[in-house]
């Protein structure tokens, strides 16, 4: 239940966070820490890969909402990728696609950054 992991990979000026396991109120702080670190290092071009994520709660969703404004104000963004159908549905029901760029694959997100 409380198994969660964040793996960070830096690629040029883009950083990718692979989140794995269960993202809920207990594990959300780990994700917060990882995002905060990126911001502290001024690495604001962020991609979050959901391929190994099994579950996300409202607390997990809240984490993104907490950082997005800051990141975008620094000319960065948080792009979400590789969601399973189930996870995507959660985001979709809430209307996240209107506020966040969600891609099928990480590559697309990274490519997006190169354009802008």
């Amino acid at each position, binding site marked *: 239940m409380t198994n969660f992991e964040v793996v960070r990979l830096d690629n040029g000026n883009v950083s990718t966070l692979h989140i794995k396991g269960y993202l809920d*109120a207990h594990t959300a702080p780990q994700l917060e820490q990882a995002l905060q670190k990126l911001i502290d290092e001024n690495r604001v071009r962020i991609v979050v890969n959901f391929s190994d994520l099994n579950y996300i709660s409202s607390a997990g969703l*809240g*984490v993104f909402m907490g950082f997005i404004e800051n990141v975008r104000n620094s000319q960065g963004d948080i792009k979400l990728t590789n969601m399973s159908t189930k996870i995507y549905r959660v985001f979709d029901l*809430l*209307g996240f696609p*209107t506020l966040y760029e969600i891609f099928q694959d990480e590559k697309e997100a990274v490519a997006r950054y190169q354009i802008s």
Partner: protein
Amino acid sequence: MRKIITFLPFVLLILVFIIDFSLAWNRQMGPELATIREIFLLVSFLLLIPALRNIQWVSDQKILTKLRTLFIIFIVFFVFSLLAESILMAFRIDELEPKTLYSSLPTYLYSAIISMTGSALTAIVLFNLRDLIFAKRKKYTQRIFNLLLLFMALQILLRNVVQLYFHNIEISKLGSGIPYYITLFTLIVFFVINSFRNSWINYLNKKQKIACFWGAFILLPVTFGLSYRFSKQELIYSFSPSLGGFLEVTTLFFCIYLVMAFFGLLFHLPTAGLFDRKLREVASLHELSRTVSSVLNINELVASITRLIRTGSQVDFSWLLLFQAKENHLQCVSTAGIPDSVNPQVLARLEDDWAKTILTQQTPLLANEVPHEKALQRYLSPMGPIGSLLAVPLVFSHQVKGILFAAKQEEFGFEQEDQVMLQAFANQAVTALENANLIKQVVEKELFEQELKIAHDAQMKLLPKTMPQVSSLDIQATCITANEVGGDYYDFFKLEGGKLGLAIGDVSGKGPSAAFYMAQLKGIMSSFAQTTQSPRELLIKANQALYDHIERTVFVTMNYAIIDTQTHLLTFARAGHCPPILLPGASQHWQVLEPRGLGLGMDDGQIFSENLDEAQVQLHPGDVLFLYTDGVTEARNSRNEEFQEGQVGATLTELQDDSALEIKDKFVKKLMQFVGDARQHDDLTFIIVKVIS
């Protein structure tokens, strides 16, 4: 009666003076009259004794005051007796005959005054001696003292008999006669027995013992000298043999008592310091026990511990290191005597072997020659020169919780006993600390649970208590709360034109803040519900109202539906919430109603309204509309499987023909069956609307 007693002594004295001046002066006083005169004197003296007792500095119970009084009286006696020599010489009175009492006025007055004041002072001496003897009273103390008084009286009486009837001048040779010697001997025996009662010495501290010792040392020659002088100076006895006798006998008693006290004090001196220290240590341990049971604040407790060690054991420095729960390294939590320039955390860095030994083997450390041990010197160097160090581990449940240190600047400052004492201290201290910690945890838990309960109760109060009564609709709703406070909300609004508004929502997150937002939401909904018949419009207004106050990381999902109770037209909008399920009465295929919509509080308005659709559906009798929160679809069993939308739809289909109430109860039962033993982690909320006619 009282008045007689008050005046009688003075009457008697006057009578005595009359006798003296009229008869005795002319040597016309026979032994019988002398005896009567003597009785008058004695009676008046005895009657005046209670008055003496009432004088403040006589009756003061403090031991030191008594000792001081005795000292002063005897010095006064001594000084006076020296002066007396010169006075006598001045008046050329150096004959030692009783008859000379009446030979001249000066001699008479001299004798009278000395006898009376001397007797008064002597009575005070006797009172004080009595109090000292009775300081630590035992069973026979009173009896033995009374016997002493008895024998004193006998002795004085015999002396009188000798004086008056045998006119024996050489009293200093203790007269003659075996009865005299026997009583004298017995008297001295009783003096000695009573002199053993000097346990007041134990109540003095070291300084006081030394002062008394020297006082006694000075008084010894003084009192022995006085005793000798009294026996020589006849004029004291010539006025009144009894009073004079009383003076002499009491002085003898005092001498003997003084000798015993002197030796008692002498033998107490070597251990006086140690004795004092023991008393102080016990007092400190006492105070620590009291503090331990009354102080629950950890900061106060640790400060008390180091302070008490410093004052109780006379060490120069004391400091306490404790393991802090989360960090698992030692921290210095309290110091005493350490200069401000020293950073306490430096003392928490223990890297050397001696420290490791204390921690792993749970044994104390006693080092009396610190300058010879380099590792210790290094550690202690911030505090200047240290000679001896004592460190004991604080052990609780076989675990080392910290280390308590005591240090002195002198070498060889600690003995084995001190280590035992400090360990006892440490054991008390660690118990106290564990208690304080435990209580803190319990209090925190209590508070937390109280908070939860308050939030939960508040949440429950905000939900509707009754179902709306609409003739064409059968409506039921329920909210089954989980242990943790959720943020589920539902409400009903009777609107103009026979319309019914239904709202169901979910504040993200849990705990008291979710309940708070839920309350806010209810307020917002209640205020806007009557202002519009468009669910979309209402949600836009609600979003505007919420967005400014709500935290960035919190959002609210909501479904708002308006049903026209006459036409059965359903209009609704979905702000990011679980899409409602519609089970048409005519078929068994349930549908999901999912118009577009963002959650509330996620956007400041423009994107929200651009992406919010309003849908309309025509309902028919037999239709079942199911509005719910994600607690239902995400309900988990012990195998971690979720209930899911599919099962919701399937269950509703099964229950299609039942009344709303039946559907509600059976649905809940089905859910509970599914969840089984697994813990419920979110509120289960749903509304059932069955269209009747």
